[in-house]
């Protein structure tokens, strides 16, 4: 796949979702590292004291709820808690990093095994929120947004990432069982399995309707699947759940299936690893494994200026430390050479219209970006369809002026949410 415009040639780059490479059935297993780190959401109150302390023993698959609320992480290993430290995640999220020194002698937690026979959605949600693939089961029980259709995503949302495709191709039995469990737990009968259009055969018998997605990026993004595959356009600013559709990754469904059939909470994440040479590898590593350990396995060295990205090249998130751990929703680790990583500039928009023509959401980006650069987020939302954005990144990819358009859009959305939550807070206090 070419990603660059040629000066002399006439072809334009055509971005496609990467298909599963032939001969990638085998996963490179990353050994359990000496320490694993889990990121637990930390409440806003400054004085929240963790219920766990350093020195506490944990078992594999044990649910660790630090603050006594609904949030928890699952320990991927047996061992001792060695540190609890506050960290700040993307967009200023408060997190607590729980580091566990692992013990090779594995000891499985039996709590889920004892509870699984009850088979209630509530019980499942209490144990399976942090399994590989991060199912987000709470979305299935929201009384305000009743779900009609569960969509099992066997397609990956970003280019170069093949994790979900691999799971769909290799763990059919787990997925089948997972679908069966989900149907029983929720009573939702309509299950759709999303796959690449050319791979539509062969998934008919696993318990759902199979639907194909166009290979052209960004067709696999849920909002575009809703519009183009299900023909149910989600109103701007709303979610697929508002329309009664719940997208769950194939890996999450497989994790649920495997949890119920074995009685053990799965803790090993499937990952696409793309080193600087661009060759796609597949690996599995315990959740909490520092990226550094995975890169070491693949002999990747990191130099000054290189980027490590969680996710793919179009929508991923750069991380600032090789110690950053694999999380339940980390589908890929992309390593980019300093020279290969796109640079942005503060050049003004020249109004060439490339972004407008490439936008899958038909947004007027050339005008929108002028509002965003001026910080006029409310006008951008009202007049220039800010909320229609599906966050595919194509506008930044084609921008002749190299304006970080996606970054402007994400910041604007974030700021609007923040502004509104402060407004409601003030109103509550005043009222």
């Amino acid at each position: 796949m070419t990603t660059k415009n040629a000066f002399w040639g006439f072809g334009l780059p055509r971005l496609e979702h990467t298909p599963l490479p032939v001969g990638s059935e085998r996963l490179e297993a990353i050994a359990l590292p000496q320490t694993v780190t889990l990121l637990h959401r930390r409440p806003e109150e400054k004085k929240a004291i963790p219920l766990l302390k350093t020195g506490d023993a944990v078992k594999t698959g044990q649910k660790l709820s630090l603050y006594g609320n609904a949030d928890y992480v699952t320990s991927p290993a047996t061992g001792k808690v060695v540190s609890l430290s506050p960290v700040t995640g993307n967009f200023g999220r408060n997190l607590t990093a729980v580091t566990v020194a692992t013990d090779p002698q594995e000891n499985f937690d039996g709590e889920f095994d004892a509870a699984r026979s009850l088979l209630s959605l509530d019980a499942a949600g209490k144990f399976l929120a942090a399994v590989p693939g991060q199912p987000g089961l709470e979305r299935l029980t929201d009384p305000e947004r009743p779900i009609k259709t569960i969509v099992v995503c066997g397609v990956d949302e970003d280019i170069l990432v093949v994790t979900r495709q691999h799971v769909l191709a290799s763990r059919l039995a787990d997925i089948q069982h997972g679908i069966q469990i989900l149907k029983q737990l929720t009573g939702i009968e309509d299950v759709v399995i999303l796959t690449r259009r050319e791979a539509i055969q062969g998934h008919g018998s696993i318990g759902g309707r199979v639907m194909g997605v166009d290979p052209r990026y960004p067709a696999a993004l849920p909002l575009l699947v809703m519009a183009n595959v299900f023909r149910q356009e989600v109103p701007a600013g709303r979610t697929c759940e508002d329309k009664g559709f719940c997208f769950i990754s194939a890996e999450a469904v497989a994790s649920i299936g495997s949890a119920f059939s074995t009685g053990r909470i799965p803790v090993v994440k499937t990952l696409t690893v793309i080193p600087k040479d661009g060759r796609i590898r597949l690996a599995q590593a315990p959740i909490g494994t520092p990226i550094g350990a995975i890169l070491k396995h693949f002999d990747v060295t990191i130099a000054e200026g290189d980027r490590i990205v969680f996710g793919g090249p179009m929508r991923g998130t750069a991380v600032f430390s090789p110690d950053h751990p694999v999380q339940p929703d980390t589908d890929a680790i992309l390593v980019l050479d300093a020279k290969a990583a796109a640079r942005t500039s503060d050049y003004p928009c020249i109004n060439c219209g490339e972004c407008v023509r490439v936008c899958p959401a038909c947004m007027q980006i050339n005008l929108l970006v002028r509002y965003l650069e001026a910080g006029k987020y409310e006008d951008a939302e009202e007049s220039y369809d800010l909320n229609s954005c599906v966050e595919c990144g194509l506008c930044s990819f084609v921008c002749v002026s190299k304006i970080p358009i996606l970054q402007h859009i994400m910041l604007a959305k974030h700021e609007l949410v923040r502004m509104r939550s402060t407004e409601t807070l003030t109103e509550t206090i005043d009222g």
Partner: protein
Amino acid sequence: MADKQKLIVSFAPFWHNGSRVTDRSMQILLAASPAAFFGIYRFGISALGVLALAVSSAVLWELAFTRVAKRPVSVGDGTAAVIGLLFGMMLPATLPWWAVITGTFLAIVVARQIYGGIGANPFNPAAVAVAILMLAWKQRMDIDSALVNYVFDFPAAFPLGAVKAFGTGAIKELSLIDLFMGRQVGGIGTICGAALSAGGIYLVLRGVIRWEIPVSFLAGAAATAGVFHAVDPLRFASPAFHLLTGFTLFGAFFLATEDASSPVNFIPMLIYGAVIGAIVVFIRNIGVFAEGLVFALLVGNLIQPLLDKIRPKALGKVE
């Protein structure tokens, strides 16, 4: 988490298709050069002088202004050179040096930098400069009087001037093929339809300009000229004549497609092109000027913000 190594972070996407403003400028210069060289061949060393002065003075005005205004130096992106070249290509080969320099000042400083520089100009800078020169130095910009000392092996009257003054009888001798191959007089770089079309088509294929604008421009001009011609074939020239003379092909491919002053959506591009094409013929046939393309273009630029309000429905937009 002990931070042994801190990495640089940046925001998605991490890929870029590699397009650059400089590349686009180079493509336009490349595409315009056959027509410019043909002009030099036709009008000789003085044409070369005008073009060279136009390009160099445009670049220097840009450099001087960005220095004085303490803006980032932007001459490297090549857009000033493009404006200078396109401006020079519309001039008669005998235009004195002071008029050329004044013109590039108007184009670069007045029509572009004052409005904020690249991407912010509401009007095509080269067209603004030519329009002002046409009003300020009418005689010097008039092709027939400017080229009075030249001897050609083909009819040396400016075709549009001839048809305006004497009707279609005056242009009977002109063959369309000759006009297309550049056997006519006019602005330095605007006389060879073959070279202009080749350059324009190249830019369309390379994705630097959008086909919608030149196609609708030419269609709008042809349709309007066709109506006039049908009404009074003795007074008004045929559509083909209008397409092959004056600035028509040059304007359709190189002026109307300027990024900042043209719309970006499909239907607005079609309307924009067609409106300019139609006004061109109106001005030629019933207006004051034999060639009023730059004025037609400025009218098109004027309505562009309104046209871009016609846009496709965004995903999930609820009316």
